[in-house]
């Protein structure tokens, strides 16, 4: 069933953001599409005790051979999909390496430590520059901003899925992801497909 060779086995993808953004949803859609293509996939989720507002990460490990553990070893990420800028940098600090590819949504979500004055949110431009320096390639996708234009920040998820598929870093294409997307959002199929296509367009413009 598996058609495409992997650039590396296992291929290690991290999806990161803040609780409530839709991290788990993205990992589930990508994971399901990969399993249907015949890959062995392990998805590990790390989220704190609260429903929202904490740092979250999903580790997606893709293999043609075996079931890997739900933890990517330190320094071994191949792709980082960052839904929030400082969370992207947090992941690079632990899992990055000179070959890592990064997609970043540059919309900050401030933590209560920042709003409460105990911590400082870094300058956004400098932050994106740092992410670029630590990645072999970086794509900046204004997913939240684009999603708001479409009516709700929640469409950022489909935009980012479109972007990661459009980047070509995963062994998936539009045909394999679209059905899963439709099953996941049966009430909002049209807008989510539009958002997905917008993500693909945005990343192709950056190439």
């Amino acid at each position, binding site marked *: 069933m598996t058609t495409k060779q992997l650039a590396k086995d296992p291929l290690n993808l991290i999806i990161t953001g*803040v609780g*409530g953004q839709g991290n788990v949803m993205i990992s589930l859609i990508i*994971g*399901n599409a990969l*399993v249907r293509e*015949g890959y*062995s*996939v*392990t*998805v*590990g*989720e*790390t989220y*704190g*005790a*609260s*429903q*929202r*507002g*904490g*740092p979250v990460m999903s580790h997606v490990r893709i293999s043609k051979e*075996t*079931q*890997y*553990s*739900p*933890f990517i*070893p*330190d*320094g*071994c990420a191949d792709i980082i999909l960052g839904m929030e800028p*400082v969370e992207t*940098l*947090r992941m*690079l*600090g*632990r899992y*990055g*390496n*000179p070959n890592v590819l990064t997609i970043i949504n540059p*919309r900050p*979500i*401030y*933590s*209560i*430590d*920042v*709003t*409460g*004055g*105990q*911590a400082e*949110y*870094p300058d956004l431009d400098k932050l994106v520059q*740092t992410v670029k*320096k*630590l990645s072999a390639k970086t794509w900046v996708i204004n997913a*939240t901003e684009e999603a*708001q234009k479409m009516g709700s*920040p929640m469409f950022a998820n489909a935009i980012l899925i479109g972007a990661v598929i459009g980047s070509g870093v995963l062994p998936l294409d539009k045909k394999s992801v679209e059905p899963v997307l439709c099953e996941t959002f049966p009430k909002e199929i049209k807008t989510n497909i539009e958002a997905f296509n917008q993500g693909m367009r945005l990343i192709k413009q950056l190439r």
Partner: protein
Amino acid sequence: MANINIDAPGTSQLFMGNEAIARGALEAGIGFAAAYPGTPSSEILGSLASVAKETGIYAEWSVNEKVAMEAAAGASFAGIRALAAMKQNGINVVSDFLANLVMSGIGKGGLVLVSCDDPSAISSSNEQDTRPIAKWLDIPLVEPGDFQEAKDMTKWLFDLSEEIGTLFMLRSVTRIAHARGNVVLGELPKKERRAYFDQIHDLKSVMPTTFMPVPSPLRHFFLHMKMDKARQKFEASRFNRYVGPDKADLLIVTCGSCWLYSQDAVKTLKLEDKVGILKLGTLWPLPEKFVESHLGKSQKVLFVEEIDPFLERSIMEFVASLPSTSPRPTFYGKRSGHINAYGELNPDLVIKAISNILGLTYQPRDAEYSDKAEAAAKSHVPERSMTFCAGCPHRATFWAIKNALKLDGRNGFVTGDIGCYSIALGPAGFFQVRTMHCMGGGAGVANGLGKLGQFGFNQPVLAVVGDSTFYHATIPALINGIYNQSDFILVILDNSATAMTGFQPHPGTGMTAMGEPTKVVSMEALCRSLGARVKVCDPFDLKHTTTTLLDMMAEGGGAKVAIMRRQCELVRGKKEKPPYKVQVDTEKCIGEACGCDRLCTRVFLCPALIWDKKAGKSKIDEVICTGCGVCTDICPQGAIIKEAA
């Protein structure tokens, strides 16, 4: 949630460990499932309940773990295969029943208990290990090492349980329970189930069928015979296996998710032909012959397991019983300090242990890059402390509690327990909660504090519990407070769902696990019937909530109840649009010049209230704000304004 009832044998699906367990139960022809929701176990019953009607099984959210296990045993006594699932620590609530159930034996229906542990206490109050409890209670125990095994083992346990006549336990951990992986499906049975409590044991016996633990020494003897039978089954189990060379430099002995970490570590270090892995799926009773046949593989044995040294101690104890001519390897693990005795493991920690023992160096990435990346993350990434969601009723409740305690002026305080509201131990709940232990524990502790008047104690005591926790573990504590006239206020945070674990219904919601409407067990009617004075508040009405609490504190006369009623914002937000559009009037907000010292952003700590550094004023993050409008009542300038949306 995945559809666990998909009729597609042989296909591979992406299932969460919990869904795989539920699917295994379906493939085993389960008829009855009961659980109390809790991390990391909730999706087992959740996914079974979601297909209950179409599969003809019965699934319920029980009021607590003890009732869930007892109800499942009842089904087994009437010949129906039954499963009870529980969270981290849930088994403690059931242990009294279990100590008797293992003696009485089960009915004709196989009976399986699934206990999900949470190493590192990621969403729990402690990281207790269930495995020693199985050993202590003589319950045969297995642990899946991946998602496929989670399904296959569950199915297998029902057969074993019926054949041997005892309860079997499957232990899982967060990284299996809540992770997802490939599961190849098996057949779903199409058998009719009939329940009947058969009271005639056999025609020759004069005694009717009776499930009881007595006579105890004799029953205990029978239990040991059952454990021996289980051991024999375990010796031949395909869930125990060895992977590696015939003679190894190091033998890893492992189980559960650590089996995945161990394989990752050996592959990462490219040591497949030097390091062997002995993976155990059946943990207790120990498959001694199987273990013995592999112990000679290496002079060095490393135990890779999380939390307690369960395999380490069981195997060392077994080795001590072997003749002196048997191989005596050097053991590494928690005792030697090579594996941490607390916290969860991961591939890196196993890599470190192997490298230490074999004298290897491991560097996953370029050193210069490593320094740069770590320094950048350290200097640029701010902390992200736990907080209540935007629009959470608990934030408003704790704001009112904080102000009421201050106005009362007697240094009153709050006892609490586990739930979303544990966040009030920290800044997001204004550090209001001062004790936190088990479910309902705060109400019990308050009972003692409320009786200290004769020793000069006059501080008001408020015990907070969630609505689901109220039904689960608080009612006896409240009865005690009324009977013994203990002075405390039980504050029930009624957000109309078991919110922290995924909004499951409970007896106060009028809805069953299978989505059927049912009778509402009214918490206020129940409390009033016990003789408690009960007040109901809307926490979003800060003024009324504060004055109500103040009034109640001023009164003595035994335990009282304040119900804070407001639906969880995550539930409301899924059904309805935000009620208000909230904005900061930049003319009225005078920023640092105001005497409030940024009360809204620095103290109230709603994630939607942010500080616009350039303007030096407060601002609403419209992506996060849910339009509850509570912050409009805390701004001394009246600069936060709400308009009906």
